[in-house]
């Protein structure tokens, strides 16, 4: 193939020369070029290697259906793989390279795969999963593990950058009456008609220019149309792809804002992800020309006919010197004439024998001829053709390019996203869109109209349809009939080649051949959806835009059915690939999710806290002194709490104010333990179950007054518990006079724990008498004042097992409270402690948290049977002993010690019997810590049958992930002070 730029053709700006790099060499193009047109103008034929066989591939098309010219753009952190060269606009300094080849696309070592074809046939990957018969059958995992890295390396198209994406992306929203997808003649007519009828219109075009297929006409002036549309007040969005249609007339758009600019303004996002809410959608997405399957139909130099017309008239590139055009329809003749006028020697092979066509006779037409084999490997030397009715009559045609047109497929993709099935049209050999009740109208060639006037008429009819459906008008309208060619199309999908193992490609991008489809059929994959998955036909990022119909026709032939009986696969969004960056928008890095901090966040950091994320919250993890490590720090903190006193920020706990005359009844129904007799001035630990009897959350509720409670929940379940309480009050118990209000943000909370906690707190209070053992016994609650007249709530609650208090002040006083407590705690050699020490203290005591209450555990499993009242009914009481929940081999909460006390273990360790180390074992370790009190590692977790069954047995902890194993013994979860004497001190 010899491609060259012509002087008098094209709409490129020849005054603006752009330099670019292709596979490390410098080239030049013009403003208005795509990378593909610039490569062709530089006579570069091979632009990639194919997926499985590493065959050289060229440029097949001029648009989004491209399945050959997939290239990598940019380098380092801006390396973007699998970009279609046909839609990538050229810019100065663009850097691009071919893919799937080593060392380069012209000389690729893996090209050997081409000769190993039978090992890469349909289902190769699946067979590898299962094992290769007869030796490996059923032992597939091992062989897959072995082959995986080679397959992934060999079959992996381009590779994405592993560096953080330096570009920004954004999400945007808009509204309109009518959105028109596609700016071809139909879309433009629809938009103009709509704006004249006073609709608010957005016109979306994936190309950089408006005009659609008219851009391939030599006398088309796109700027004039653009001005006209803009003057009418239509919002035009170019470089924007409508990639999906969703419920209620929502359209997803991807706007490529700076992908065509060499040095984009860093303040502008690279791409914008739009959600458009329209009242009506008109789709004029055009049609896509199909190729024809025959041997070697993928040699560089093969292209669709219409693509060559685009390259000629839009980019001024003549794509061949001696051009053979193979077709079965009328659409190629205008192009043939123009190519011939531009200086090419053109021969048209038309599979039809009986038809009339008007041409200027500047090229030869071979009626009743089809192509069956291309000779050449890196470029086309000649084409073997034969009579379509008599395959024995064959000859060889010298040519350097083969253009194909096997018919046109309307782009029904967007409609398919809405679950609307297209209908096969025999006359036009294509799927046509069908009607939908949703406000979506298809116009132009995406409804199978092949000539411009029909397209324009359909655009106007489409808008009338929209106006009628929106109730604005009641006007009769009709759509032109599908078709528009003088002579009917004659189905032609494949020309068979008698030699063995032909390479007749159906899906270029995934290297699926006609043989693969037949093999899949022989192996029993006869449903289209199975065929698709087994052969991967249509599963590349072009989604089979060119090849799907050919695959269907082959399957129909094999099944002795018609295409509509075989069906069609459903197209799903996105129409063309959408980058992950655009999907995430601004939700990346620290904005990935909201960050919650407590009011004493800065205070904590100022006092040396290292922070950790718990849910959305940042919580103090540990407070290292000088060079302390995490473990040194938490062990010191936990020991200090047990010895003297420690202070810990517990603000992240959920806090709910419960008010109203029926509050007590309400709590009594939602907690498993009794609340009816809780006195004012007392708090109680409570467990909430779900309807199905599983533990939902635990926390405390403080009775502040006759009709007022202050509830705390766990950090992680705070939002869920709040919604749950609202649900119960608004849907089930609407007769209860109770009001619930989240006050999590209003109160700052701190735990003061340790034998000296009362003394420290005393020094901080205006009235030191309120918290004596008599005035504030265990679980007592009081409202009083910190020094400086700061109102506070205090409850004598212990999570650590030590004498301890939770103190709450209004959030604004958080820092003052911390200063006051810390100043006094220091006098007793106290410490600040974080989540890690808090965890150590509670594991020592056998207190459960989210690690244990994981949504599978019952009260009994958690060893809290005493918390389940037998005197009342409550949420979950009917279900907590149902079926499997009452089995006596359930996993019960226990403590674990390593048999050898010098050993350690990790959370996640599977507990097994000694000679039976497999599967899920008989239990699991959920939380572990070093116990400063006991001087060795301890764990909390579950084991089938609980302590009673295993207390004298040596068990094994298996940790296959970390390749670790240790001997374990089961102990009571209450590993320290089981009677709780310290708390009551």
């Amino acid at each position: 193939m010899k491609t060259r730029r012509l002087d008098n053709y094209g709409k490129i700006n020849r005054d603006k020369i752009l330099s670019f790099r292709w596979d490390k060499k410098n080239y030049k193009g013009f403003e208005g070029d795509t990378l593909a047109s610039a490569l062709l103008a530089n006579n570069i034929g091979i632009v990639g290697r194919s997926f499985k066989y590493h065959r050289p591939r060229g440029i097949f098309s001029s648009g989004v259906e491209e399945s050959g010219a997939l290239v990598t753009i940019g380098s380092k952190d801006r390396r973007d793989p699998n970009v279609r060269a046909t839609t990538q606009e050229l810019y100065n300094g663009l850097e691009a390279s071919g893919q799937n080849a080593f060392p380069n696309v012209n000389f690729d070592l893996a090209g050997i795969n081409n000769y190993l074809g039978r090992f890469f046939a349909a289902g190769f990957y699946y067979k590898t999963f299962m094992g290769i018969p007869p030796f490996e059958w059923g032992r597939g995992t091992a062989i897959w593990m072995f082959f995986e890295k080679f397959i992934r390396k060999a079959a992996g198209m381009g590779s994405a950058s592993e560096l953080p994406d330096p570009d920004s992306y954004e999400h945007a929203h808009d509204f309109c009456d009518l959105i028109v997808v596609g700016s071809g003649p139909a879309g433009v007519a629809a938009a103009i008609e709509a704006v004249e009828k006073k609709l608010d219109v957005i016109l979306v075009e994936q190309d950089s220019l408006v005009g659609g297929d008219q851009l391939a006409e030599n006398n088309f002036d796109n700027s004039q149309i653009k001005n006209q549309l803009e003057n009418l007040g239509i919002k035009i969005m170019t470089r924007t792809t409508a990639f999906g249609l969703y419920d209620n007339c929502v359209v997803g758009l991807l706007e490529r804002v700076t992908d065509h600019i060499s040095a984009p303004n860093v303040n502008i996002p690279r791409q914008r992800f739009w959600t458009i809410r329209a009242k009506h959608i008109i789709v004029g997405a055009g049609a896509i020309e199909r190729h024809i399957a025959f041997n070697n139909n993928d040699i560089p130099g093969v292209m669709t006919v219409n693509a060559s017309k685009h390259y000629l008239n839009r980019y001024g590139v003549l794509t061949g010197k001696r051009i053979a055009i193979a077709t079965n329809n009328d659409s190629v003749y205008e192009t043939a004439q123009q190519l011939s006028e531009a200086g090419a020697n053109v021969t048209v092979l038309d599979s039809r024998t009986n038809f009339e066509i008007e041409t200027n006779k500047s090229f030869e037409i071979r009626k009743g001829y089809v192509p069956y084999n291309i000779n050449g490997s890196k470029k086309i030397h000649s084409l073997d053709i034969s009579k379509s009715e008599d395959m024995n009559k064959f000859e060889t045609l010298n040519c350097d390019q083969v253009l194909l047109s096997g018919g046109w497929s309307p782009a029904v993709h967007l409609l398919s996203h809405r679950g609307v099935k297209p209908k096969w049209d025999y006359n036009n050999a294509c799927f046509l869109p069908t009607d939908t009740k949703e406000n979506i109208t298809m116009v132009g060639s995406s409804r199978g109209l092949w000539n411009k006037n029909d397209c324009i008429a359909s655009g106007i009819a489409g808008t009338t349809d929209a106006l009628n459906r929106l109730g604005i008008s009641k006007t009769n309208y009709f759509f032109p009939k599908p078709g528009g060619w003088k002579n009917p199309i004659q189905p032609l999908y494949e020309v068979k080649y008698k030699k063995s193992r032909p390479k007749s490609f159906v899906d270029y991008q995934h290297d699926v051949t006609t043989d693969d489809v037949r093999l899949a059929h022989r192996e029993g994959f006869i449903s289209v959806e199975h065929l698709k998955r087994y052969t991967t036909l249509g599963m590349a990022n072009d989604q089979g835009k060119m090849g799907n119909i050919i695959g269907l026709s082959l399957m129909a032939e094999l099944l002795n059915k018609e295409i509509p009986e075989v069906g069609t696969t459903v197209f799903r969004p996105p129409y063309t690939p959408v980058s992950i960056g655009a999907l995430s928008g601004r939700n990346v890095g620290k904005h990935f999710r909201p960050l919650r901090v407590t009011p004493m966040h800065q205070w904590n950091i100022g006092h040396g806290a290292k922070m950790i994320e718990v849910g959305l919250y940042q919580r103090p993890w540990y407070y290292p002194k000088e060079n302390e490590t995490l473990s040194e720090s938490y062990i010191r903190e936990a020991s200090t709490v047990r010895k003297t006193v420690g202070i810990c920020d517990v603000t992240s706990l959920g806090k709910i104010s419960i008010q109203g005359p029926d509050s007590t009844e309400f709590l009594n129904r939602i907690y498993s333990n009794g609340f009816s007799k809780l006195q004012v001035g007392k708090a109680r630990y409570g467990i909430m179950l779900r309807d199905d009897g599983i533990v939902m959350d635990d926390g405390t509720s403080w009775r502040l007054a006759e009709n007022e409670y202050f509830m705390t929940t766990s950090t992680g379940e705070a939002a869920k518990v709040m919604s749950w309480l609202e649900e119960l009050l608004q849907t089930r118990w609407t007769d209860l006079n109770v009001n619930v209000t989240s006050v999590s943000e209003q109160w700052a909370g701190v735990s003061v724990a340790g034998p000296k906690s009362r003394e420290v707190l005393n020094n901080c209070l205006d009235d030191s008498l309120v918290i004596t053992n008599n005035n504030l016994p265990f679980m007592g609650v009081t409202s009083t004042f910190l020094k400086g007249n700061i109102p506070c709530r205090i409850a004598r609650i212990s999570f650590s097992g030590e004498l301890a208090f939770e103190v709450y002040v209004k959030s604004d006083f958080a820092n003052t409270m911390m200063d006051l407590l810390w100043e006094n705690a220091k006098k007793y050699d106290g410490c600040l402690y974080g989540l890690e020490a808090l965890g150590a203290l509670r594991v020592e005591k056998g207190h459960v948290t989210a690690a244990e209450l994981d949504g599978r555990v019952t009260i009994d499993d958690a060893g809290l049977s005493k918390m389940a009242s037998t005197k009342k009914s409550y949420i979950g009481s009917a279900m907590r002993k149902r079926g499997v929940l009452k089995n006596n081999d359930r996993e019960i909460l226990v403590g674990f010690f390593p048999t050898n006390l010098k050993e350690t273990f990790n959370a996640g360790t599977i507990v097994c019997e000694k000679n039976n180390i497999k599967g899920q074992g008989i239990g699991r370790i959920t939380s572990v810590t070093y116990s400063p009190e006991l001087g060795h590692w301890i764990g909390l977790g579950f084991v089938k049958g609980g302590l009673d069954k295993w207390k004298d047995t040596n068990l094994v902890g298996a940790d296959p992930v970390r390749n670790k194993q240790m001997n374990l013994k089961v102990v009571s979860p209450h590993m320290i002070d089981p009677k709780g004497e310290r708390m009551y001190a």
Partner: protein
Amino acid sequence: MIRINCPYCGERDHSEFSYGGDATINYPSLDASEKEWTEAIFFRKNIKGFQFETWHHSNGCRMWLVVERSTVTHEIKSVKPCNPNLQKVVENNK
């Protein structure tokens, strides 16, 4: 891309709401049998067409709503507060 017309807040995007569940369940009394609770919790119809379901306006007014929605088209026919007392208030304010 559902939009729900909250009786208190007006029409809002579904991202402001959390899905609840079947709104037609009459939950048994707390002392009802395990069998009754099993029916109420685990047995659900798989409706093709309009169904009543609860949604929580969790990023809005916090009201629990009964939404009549088509499982096929997402069309929403009606939206009401779950709480009959609130329903009355809404009716009176119309």
